[in-house]
């Protein structure tokens, strides 16, 4: 027997094709160049003997120090010849072979050992973890290269020994990375779910842990390659690595450096080859690191895009209602996010006003654009988002970006949702409040700190003087939020914007903070713009309510009017669908489907797919706003009063 409603399909917007790795690599020219170089290197290494123009070991005393072809030499030795008449180009190619062979071997061995030990340490924990990590730590503290040299020198510089010692030096890095990632992943609900379902250990390792590890591991392994290549070259340079007649770039440089004044080419070309190889590896590794971090990719993409777009932001042309009594007026706010998969209109044509001292709530669910609106008011939207367009007035004067900057934190304060991450963990909390006063009121720090103590008392923080020096981690969530409120109210702003200020707090703390905010509001005459999804909080403290859905304002009215006589069908449905504290019903009324995701752009009314009263008009035409005595709403078929 099936249950409840199925999700409603929403129209998808045509998007930019998802950027695959290949395409992304091509866009990053440097990384692409690096990949090309590595490709060439691999070809040389694999097909080396076929590509060498000459036998790398063939000496020719008549061709000693023959210059390269572009410096007066012949085509027989394109890049010249070394002290023994051996062709430099051939030796460089042969060197590529050895280098890559050693490099790849070491990376594979140290990788396999490191990953295995890291998995074991991270997942098993306990004494296994302790032992492995102690060994790794001890080894990391060893005087690195020196010991490698020691071993190779005394045991003998064969290829096997070189690979062995360098591998021994590399495994700890992989092990540590894997271990810390495994420890992190184990805490995630996804892995816990796998354990709770009863998955045996091998399955968890293979299906749940490894797939999330391979990306950073790959980046790490590639960096390892660079390190090994340099290490081997250094060893050979010191005479403790590959021995003649093996061709190694490091060895070539060592052999010919004495004659550098005479012939620069036998040391420059292998050096260039070496430098290019390591550089290429590092470029690819860098690209890989950014590639596997989607947030960084988005920001990078957006920044590049912004440089090509026309200027946007606050405009001061033809502001409506200049000289009004309102504190803040916002007209036609448009915020757009430019992501790699398409443009997203987060806020569309939002207009509203706030009068001095009043409490206005913006209510919405995810994708409604309410939080974005709050940030836009403070001009804090960053890439990939951008305020495309807005007209604002402050106390009747048109607002420019520069003027807004002076208002920010001064006459307009903001409190955010998560008190755990909103304070700088390394700065004493007294300072974090005092600095606002220093900046905006020009107070000296000492006076500002005194005032901060007073503010602490005002917001109900016990032992305010002693707390000035404390760091955020010494306080609970509720206390931290009080600190943030103190910082926002310190310069005595006219408007306080609060974005879900109590959502992350416990219920009894939430009640305290709400009482505090309303109390301070009354005392200081501050207007409050409260952004929230909690209708109960709205009912408790707001004077007016603005309802947002799909980036638009769909209804606005006084609080009592909105709850008693909602007009927009979404408001009506929302009020009915909220689980009620004060009674219980058999089957809860619901709104079918889901709020539109950021990517879903629909013609017409955003709520139409879920609305029981929707008609064709609703699906094609954006509803016009009707204004009346109670407020305004944008609905083709609003709820009528009986």
């Amino acid at each position, binding site marked *: *027997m099936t*249950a*409840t*409603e*199925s*999700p409603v399909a929403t129209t998808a917007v045509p998007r930019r094709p998802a950027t695959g790795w290949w395409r992304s690599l091509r866009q990053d020219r440097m990384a692409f160049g690096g990949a090309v170089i590595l490709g060439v290197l691999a070809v040389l290494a694999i097909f080396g003997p076929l590509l060498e123009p000459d036998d790398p070991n063939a000496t020719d005393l008549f061709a000693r120090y023959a210059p390269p072809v572009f410096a007066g030499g012949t085509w027989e030795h394109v890049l010249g010849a070394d002290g023994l008449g051996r062709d430099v180009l051939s030796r460089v190619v042969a060197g590529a072979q050895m280098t890559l062979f050693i490099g790849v071997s070491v990376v594979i061995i140290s990788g396999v050992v490191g990953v295995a030990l890291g998995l074991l340490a991270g997942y098993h924990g306990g004494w296994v973890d302790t032992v492995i990590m102690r060994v790794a730590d001890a080894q990391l503290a060893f005087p690195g290269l020196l010991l490698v040299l020691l071993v190779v020198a005394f045991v003998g510089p064969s290829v096997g020994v070189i690979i062995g010692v360098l591998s021994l030096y590399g495994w700890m890095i992989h092990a540590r990375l894997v271990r810390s990632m495994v420890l992190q992943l184990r805490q*995630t*609900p*996804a892995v*816990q*779910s796998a*354990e*709770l*379902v*009863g998955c*045996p250990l091998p*399955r968890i390792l293979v*299906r749940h842990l490894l*797939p999330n590890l391979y990306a950073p591991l790959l980046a790490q392994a590639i960096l390892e390659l660079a390190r090994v290549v340099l290490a081997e070259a250094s060893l050979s340079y010191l005479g403790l690595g590959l021995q003649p007649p093996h061709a190694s770039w490091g060895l070539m440089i060592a052999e010919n450096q004495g004659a550098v004044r005479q012939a620069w080419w036998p040391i420059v070309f292998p050096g260039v080859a070496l430098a290019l190889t390591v550089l290429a590896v590092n470029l690819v590794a860098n690209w890989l690191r950014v590639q596997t971090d989607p947030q960084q990719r988005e920001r990078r993409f957006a920044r590049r895009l912004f440089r090509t777009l026309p200027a946007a932001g606050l405009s001061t042309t033809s502001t409506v209602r200049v000289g009004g009594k309102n504190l803040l007026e916002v007209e036609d706010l448009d915020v757009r996010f430019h992501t790699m998969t398409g443009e997203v209109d987060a806020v569309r044509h939002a207009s509203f006003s706030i009068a001095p001292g009043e409490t206005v709530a913006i209510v919405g*669910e*995810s994708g409604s654009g309410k939080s974005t609106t709050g940030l836009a008011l403070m001009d804090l939207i960053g890439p990939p988002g951008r305020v495309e367009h807005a007209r604002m007035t402050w106390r009747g004067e048109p607002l420019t970006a520069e003027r807004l900057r002076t208002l920010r934190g001064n006459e307009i304060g903001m409190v955010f949702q998560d008190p755990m991450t909103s304070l700088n963990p390394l700065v004493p909390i007294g300072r974090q409040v005092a600095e606002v006063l220093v900046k905006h009121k020009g107070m000296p720090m000492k006076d500002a700190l005194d005032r901060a103590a007073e503010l602490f008392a005002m917001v109900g923080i016990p032992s305010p003087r002693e707390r000035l020096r404390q760091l955020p981690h010494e306080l*609970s*969530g509720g*206390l931290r939020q009080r600190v943030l409120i103190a910082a926002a109210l310190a310069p005595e702003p006219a408007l306080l914007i609060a974005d879900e200020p109590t959502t992350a707090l*416990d*219920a*009894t*703390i*939430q*009640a*305290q903070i709400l*009482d505090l905010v309303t109390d301070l509001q009354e005392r200081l005459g501050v207007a409050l713009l409260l952004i929230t999804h*909690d209708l*109960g909080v*709205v*009912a*408790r403290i707001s004077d007016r309510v603005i309802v947002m859905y799909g980036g638009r304002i769909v209804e606005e009215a006084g609080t*009592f009017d909105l*709850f*008693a*006589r909602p007009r927009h069908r979404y408001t009506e*449905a929302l009020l*009915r*669908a909220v*689980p*009620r*504290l*004060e*009674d*219980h*019903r*058999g089957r*809860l*009324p*619901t*709104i079918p489907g*889901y*709020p539109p*995701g950021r990517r879903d752009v629909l013609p017409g009314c955003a709520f139409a797919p879920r609305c029981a009263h929707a008609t064709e008009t609703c699906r094609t035409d954006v509803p016009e706003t009707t204004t009346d005595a109670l407020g305004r709403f944008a609905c083709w078929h609003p*709820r009528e009063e009986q």
Partner: protein
Amino acid sequence: MTRSVQQPITKDVTSPQELVVVDDLHVRFPVSQGVVHAVRGVSFTIGRGETVALVGESGSGKSTTGFALIRRYTPAEGTISFEGRDITGVKGRELRRLRSDMQLVFQDPYASLNPRMRVRDLVAEPLLVHGRAKPGPALDAEVGDLLEMCGLPRDAAQRHPNAFSGGERQRIAIARALALRPKLLVADEVVSALDVSIKAQIINLLVELQRTHGLAYLFISHDLAVVRNVAHRVMIMYAGRIVETGPTGSIFTAPRHPYSVALLSAAPVADPVAERARERVVLTGDVPSVLDPPAGCPFHSRCPLVVDRCRVEAPPLADRGDGHLTACWRADEVAALPAAHTLDRAPEGHP
């Protein structure tokens, strides 16, 4: 159609109605600064097909209790019985078999589904792991059935979790948890991370599934409005102890513990008329640290009704009749507070 007032479930331990019996559960964690007493002597039962809600704030121990019940943590003291069998110390294969009887759904739908697996693999995994099915058309059909049961289209199986919204993902998680047809589901804040208009959908789904399959739920939540619409019985926890428990209606309309009153006061009601007219108790201070629990009643440091006895002697859970138990020396006075009765009036003026 309204449901009838919840019937109290008998407490008889030997009754075949009892699915789960927890007795004097203690869970402790060593940390660098000492020992955290997350759960301190919790006892309760869950009957077949019954929803018992566990309510509290951070540090109350509600999530730890839920995790201990499904044996993710090992109790330091106390016993847990499932269907009459003592499962407190089971390990290994017996523990794995237990997994097919009890499952858990997590809070965060974005973090609880492995993004690299397809929905089909996620829902089928429990069946494969326990040897209940082999890959093939029969398994695919079963997966499809489970998805439909949870209100998802059958073709959702082909896609990855990233293609779905929060509410849909939670449905996938529920389908995954139900694959083994467990008898008990621990729902750990399963609607807390969802949008307001979606919570009702998932609640309806859970209630429906309970009716069809006789599932029992341990519903852990901090959201009292949700709890009121889901649970038969409610247990309120504070600092690792149960301070009040009883049938839902009774708890909400006639609470008898100061903390319960404060908790109910703190939950805002979505009706400005009622909300602004309510009598409330607002606590001062913070939720306690469970590192060093004080002697006496766990609530005494914040209690508006505290007297000397509270600081010294911890009140036991005492039955006031009709299955409503309270751990407070002054329970009768609490019952007389105006703030304790703001939720038993019918709400006015809803559309």
